[in-house]
């Protein structure tokens, strides 16, 4: 569907939407149901900024309108779409946050530090999941199984961590179990050519079932012996953790957050600057071409899929031994699917996926904050926020994205 040369191209449509949403924000949040109380932004323990919420909201709404107008009038090039979306929607979200806080029943203070910390914590398992997706899908294997891989990771982390009394052993076991799950995916996808989307969903069911049965009969009745792993203790990065605002947000975590960020950097580097990365991308884009150059397509896919499973397994472990809580049935609660959406929203790039994961993490943290101070929006509707954000992101902002060309297509050698 080519619309570029027509008047209503993607930028203009978005522009019109922004103008409409901006005006609505100004009218509703600023006029008809206006913010009343001042809102305090608490940046650190002793630094706070207090605003009159109403003028801020009106300004933010007008920013959205302005971006919309600019898109309609001048910024018609494709390259302007992404950043304008960021600005316009960011302003809208902030306006909403200010409005909700201002009209909250209890407090009118936004704890910025906690909000950002919460964002990162919520985003980390998603980052692991999305990176698993990057590894698999860049080589051409669709991974709908992220959910299951996270789950077995969480499961094995708790089980082995308890049995060996070592969180490190738990971590390794989590990775290995994630990799085993992925190996199943790989065998059936690559060798038996089973439809990969279907396969991923079915393997998720298998993961639910196996972990559920063992949990119910083994881990739950004998929790002390099988489901009582320790926790990775937080490690404050010396020096960096004392930076105001950034320090507490970024540098006072345990292994998992650092590991996730390091993996984003490592996989980005490996994918675009190493032999492995070049071959991976070639296999994901044009396996036949890779084959004609002597690259073993199936081997690359097996290897990458299993590596992806390992990464997802590690991410799963964050949910148990990373957080210091016990394993529970279906405890991943759909995180694997959000990770999948982050992968797509981030256009199969590690950094993009991370940013998308952070976006969902923020939606989650903001929802929790607004519910806790009793904002005027019913809590259930706030709970929908991350899902609506995903829906909107995938449908409105991404649309038809360009996946690796051979993603999901089994390679059948003639």
């Amino acid at each position, binding site marked *: 569907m080519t619309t570029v040369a027509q008047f209503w191209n993607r930028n203009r449509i978005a522009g019109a939407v922004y103008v409409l949403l901006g005006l609505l924000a100004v009218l509703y949040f600023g006029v008809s149901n206006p913010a009343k109380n001042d809102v305090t932004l608490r940046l650190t323990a002793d630094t706070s900024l207090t605003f009159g919420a109403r003028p801020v909201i009106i300004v933010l709404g007008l920013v959205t309108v302005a971006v919309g107008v600019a898109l309609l009038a001048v910024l018609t090039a494709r390259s302007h779409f992404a950043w304008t979306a960021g600005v316009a929607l960011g302003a809208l979200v902030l306006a909403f946050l200010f409005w909700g806080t201002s009209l909250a029943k209890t407090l009118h203070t936004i704890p910025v530090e906690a909000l950002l910390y919460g964002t990162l914590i919520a985003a980390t398992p998603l980052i692991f999941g999305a990176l698993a997706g990057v590894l698999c899908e860049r080589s051409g294997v*669709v991974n*709908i199984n992220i959910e299951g891989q996270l789950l077995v990771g969480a499961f094995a982390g708790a089980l082995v961590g308890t049995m060996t009394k070592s969180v490190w052993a738990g971590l390794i076991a989590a990775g290995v179990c994630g990799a085993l799950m992925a190996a199943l995916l790989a065998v*059936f996808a690559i060798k*038996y*050519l*089973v*439809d990969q*989307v*279907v*396969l991923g*969903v*079915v*393997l998720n*069911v*298998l993961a*639910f*079932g*196996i972990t*559920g*049965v*063992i949990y*119910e*009969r*083994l881990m739950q009745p004998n929790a002390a012996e099988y489901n009582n792993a320790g926790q990775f203790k937080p490690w404050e990065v010396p020096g960096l953790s004392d930076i105001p605002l950034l320090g507490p947000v970024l540098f006072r975590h345990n292994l998992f957050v650092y590991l996730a960020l390091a993996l984003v950097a490592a996989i980005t580097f490996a994918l675009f600057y190493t032999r492995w990365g070049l071959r991976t991308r070639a296999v994901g884009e*044009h*396996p*036949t071409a890779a*084959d004609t150059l002597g690259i073993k397509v199936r081997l690359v896919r097996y290897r990458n899929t299993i590596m992806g499973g390992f990464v997802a397994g590690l991410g799963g472990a964050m949910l148990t031994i990373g957080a210091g809580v016990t394993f529970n*049935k279906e405890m991943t609660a*759909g995180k694997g*699917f959000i990770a*999948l*959406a982050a992968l*797509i929203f981030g256009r199969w790039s590690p950094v993009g996926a991370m940013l998308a994961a952070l976006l969902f993490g923020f939606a989650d943290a903001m929802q929790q904050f607004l519910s806790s101070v009793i904002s005027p929006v*019913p809590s*259930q*509707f706030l*709970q*929908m926020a991350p*899902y*609506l954000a*995903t*829906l909107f992101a*995938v*449908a*409105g902002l*991404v*649309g*038809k*994205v360009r*996946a690796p*060309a*051979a*993603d*999901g*297509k*089994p390679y*059948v*050698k*003639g």
Partner: protein
Amino acid sequence: MTDEAKPPAAEPERTVPPEKDVAPRPNRPFRIFIEELTTASTFMVTVLAVVLALLVGSILVIISNDSAREAWGYFFAAPLDAFEMSWYAVRDAYVALFQGAIYDPAKPSAWGSISETLTYAAPLTFTGLSVALAFRAGLFNIGAQGQAVFGAIFGVLAGFLLHLPPVLHMLVALVCALIGGALWGFIPGILKAKTGAHEVITTIMLNNIAGIFLIWLVVQKGFQNPERTDAISKSAEENARLPRLLGFLEGDLRVNLAIVLAVLAAAGVSWLLNRSTFGFELRAVGGNPDAAKTAGMNVAMTYALVMAVAGGLAGLGGASMSLGLLPFALTPGVIANIGFDGITVALLGRAKPWGVLAGALLMGGLQAGAVKMNAVGGVPTDMVYVLQALIVIFIAAPALIKTVFRLRDGKASRSTATLAKGW
């Protein structure tokens, strides 16, 4: 993309498709029977997939059985114990499974188990048809769960907000459920058509949203049952409920009109797929959207419509729960897991309407049996998940079944057709 690596399909002399040259069929009935048993036919692959799944599942049965696990703990001291206890555990579990699904001498009515199987199978048929129909159009409808939620909601709302005479009230409630599900299915359809957003992601998100909406709705004033303090809505009126079929027999048999409607739905979908222009369009779009577009079909509209129809079917599935079973009201878990189970059912039935019905009966039997298995042997009901997943995987990989059981090459042993498109 990679024509070159494939065998040259475009050989001028080849007019005979390769399917033909499977061993010639003998003509004596017994030989045919043996032939059928040793060839990887669709039927055999399905049967063997179930057998293999039960075998693999027995490992979990053993793990989850205390005595068996204990015996394995001292395996080297008394190895026979371990095998004996394991055998008992597996035997007891699968006997219970059979009793719960087919016939249980302990039940007051001989029809008791069958009634349960049919009760579980009815909603699964609807959601299975929903997923299957979408598969045929090349779409993967993971959203049957959310669509069923909306079907259940609309059905019950019509059930207690309206006051109509018998039969009519039920029909109106069912139509409302159909509309509710269709609306919720239309959203991912139109998003796919207009923006290209992949239905796998959008339907999963819509499932979550539907679930949260349901929890919100049931405790709202005017909807919540005023006599109750828990999360339950008012009940649908008597007239709107699906009548029980075996009420005249002894015992409390739950099977209701839903299973009849499910059979009709399978027939309807079968007609739609094979005898309607819409069915032709949806199959063409599923087979090759580009060719369908070139042939003048409106692919985008087909996607939206297919998802709406699929949603409507799932909506009926939801209503068969909320209007067919106690408490005839909305609760947060009113539709159980029928949407997700529908995926399995559709795959079991190979996305064919009558196959879906058969798959739903199998799955319904498993679920009914799992209740008994749990009540008798304490085998967790999650066991059903494991069996479901294994059966589907084995069916989808006939080559595996063929190798394990050393079957001869047959129609079903070739790799399965792609059901859903990648990204």
